[in-house]
């Protein structure tokens, strides 16, 4: 590499970097260690734990993992299982598969049909959380909601979406909400495939499914992995189901972010809330490390 002239001297560079560095250290790095410290104390918002928190060792963690209560409704284990289902069905299956289907459906097609469908998916994705949650509360309403109107119109029985099948409700919601990201990512991945790859398959008379399975999917493998990890991270950390179900009924949709909120800000138990936050961060760390190592490997092979 040829020696390049330094444009910004080191000292000026550090000066430019300093304000952003202060923010990142204060609001990203510090909270990471702070959550660990608080998770070993009985810190609370009110009462004696607020003024003089004590070191309580592993108590908070032992309570979270207590075998007798672990899987009971409203407890940590049950919440983890709910979150796992939510991520699996709404992100990995719902958003990724639907996103791929949409990208594939409009692949090599430029028309107003494609524009319309993609724009509608994107609108569902960019409207603020509270607004889509409000719209979905109405959409799923038992007595007046649009979905039950459609069902009765088709001669099917009404479903009590929010009280009867709340998990299915937030899974449908999150699939609808987030599919646009996967669709856009897969569309651009498909767009980067050289047409010659498919022309050979056209000549040999392969059908659409064979082309997708044997040619397309192997070629966009890294994009698929990127997509799956990003949507897993986002879905795992999202608080939005709270806006529709509040975590209920009877804790049945209480994903870990809502559980943390309830423990820390309803029961004011910061120690226990921090212990859950710590475990969430460790799970995030595992996903992020897998992602970064894959990114690096891809850059190395480029």
């Amino acid at each position, binding site marked *: 590499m040829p020696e390049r002239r330094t444009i910004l001297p080191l000292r000026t560079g550090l000066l430019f*970097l300093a304000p952003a560095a202060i923010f990142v250290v204060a*609001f990203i790095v510090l*909270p990471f260690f702070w959550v660990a410290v608080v998770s070993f104390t009985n810190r609370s918002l009110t009462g004696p734990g607020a003024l003089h928190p004590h070191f309580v060792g592993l108590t908070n963690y032992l309570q979270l993992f207590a075998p007798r209560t672990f899987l009971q409704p409203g407890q940590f284990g049950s919440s983890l299982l709910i979150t796992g289902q939510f991520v699996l069905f709404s992100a990995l299956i719902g958003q990724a598969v639907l996103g791929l289907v949409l990208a594939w459906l409009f692949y090599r097609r430029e028309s107003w049909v494609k524009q319309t469908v993609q724009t509608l998916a994107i609108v569902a994705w*960019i409207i603020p959380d509270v607004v889509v949650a409000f719209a979905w*509360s109405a959409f799923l309403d038992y007595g007046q909601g649009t979905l039950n109107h459609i069902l009765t119109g088709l001669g099917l029985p009404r479903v009590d979406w929010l009280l009867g099948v709340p998990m299915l409700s937030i899974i449908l919601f999150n699939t609808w909400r987030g599919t646009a990201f996967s669709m856009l990512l897969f569309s651009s991945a498909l767009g980067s495939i050289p047409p010659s790859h498919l022309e050979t398959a056209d000549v040999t008379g392969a059908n659409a499914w064979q082309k997708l399975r044997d040619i397309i999917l192997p070629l966009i493998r890294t994009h698929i992995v990127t997509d799956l990890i990003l949507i897993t991270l986002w879905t795992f950390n999202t608080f939005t189901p709270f*806006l529709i179900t509040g975590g209920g009924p009877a804790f049945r949709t209480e994903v870990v972010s809502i559980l943390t909120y309830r423990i820390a*800000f309803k029961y004011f138990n910061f120690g226990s809330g921090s212990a859950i936050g710590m475990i969430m961060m460790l799970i995030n760390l595992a996903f992020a490390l897998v992602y970064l190592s894959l990114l690096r490997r891809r850059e190395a092979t480029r």
Partner: protein
Amino acid sequence: MRLLRLVLTRATFYAAAAIFAALFAIPLVWLLFAPFDARANLAVRLPHPFTLANFGKVFANAFAVRALFQNSIIQAGGAMLLVTLLATLAAYALSRSPIRGKDLLSYGLVLFSSIVTGTAAMVPLFLLIYSLGLIDTQLGVILVFTGGLLPAAIFIMRDFVDSIPRSYEESALVAGASAWGMFKDIALPIVRPGMMVVAVWTFVNVWGGFFVPFILLRSPSNMPASVAIYSFYTEGGTPIITLTTAYSLLYTLPVLALYLFVNWRYGFRFFGGIKS
């Protein structure tokens, strides 16, 4: 036979497209009609009688007006200015100065920011703002959003600065410009499109953000529109539905407008960046 197959394929394509369009559109139809319906309930129907009075109700509600036209703008605008300024300076330094280990620094930034999310870090973020004496202040909300959005903003900006040829700046230096003068007069005008994208992205994120103001703010007079809408619809009742749907529409319009603007001005390439 081949013609028949072609027709069938086309028909299947259009049928599939129509179903997908309906799936995405139907949950939002109610939100489009109810604001103009004097007797709106949770059911979808054409507005009857058609009215604009619901918007009048919004403007007559001091809490709603203050949340949307003051607090949301202060919070989203404040974070937008801070993030854009700091991310531009930082990205420029990471791209153009001989800081050692800057690539490792960039990786670390992405790693940390994807681990320490707002929900996982809710307790330490609350305690931090509490110990700064900023609970229930707009500034506290602005600071937390700025810290949370900066890493991604720096990443977007660095991509941008890296793609600019260094020759302009080098000739300015040869001509005897100072480091600051060169940054201000040469670099800033060139990276302005990147700054626009980061600014819009930050604004939309804070404008739509619910969780951070929800846990940091207490008094109704400080609430942004997102928290106001939540407090409206959790109260329920028909009169509140007419108000809340009209209010939701007003609150959503800037987001749609900004999306259209970025899409028109910079094309789809940047779209991935408009939402985290």
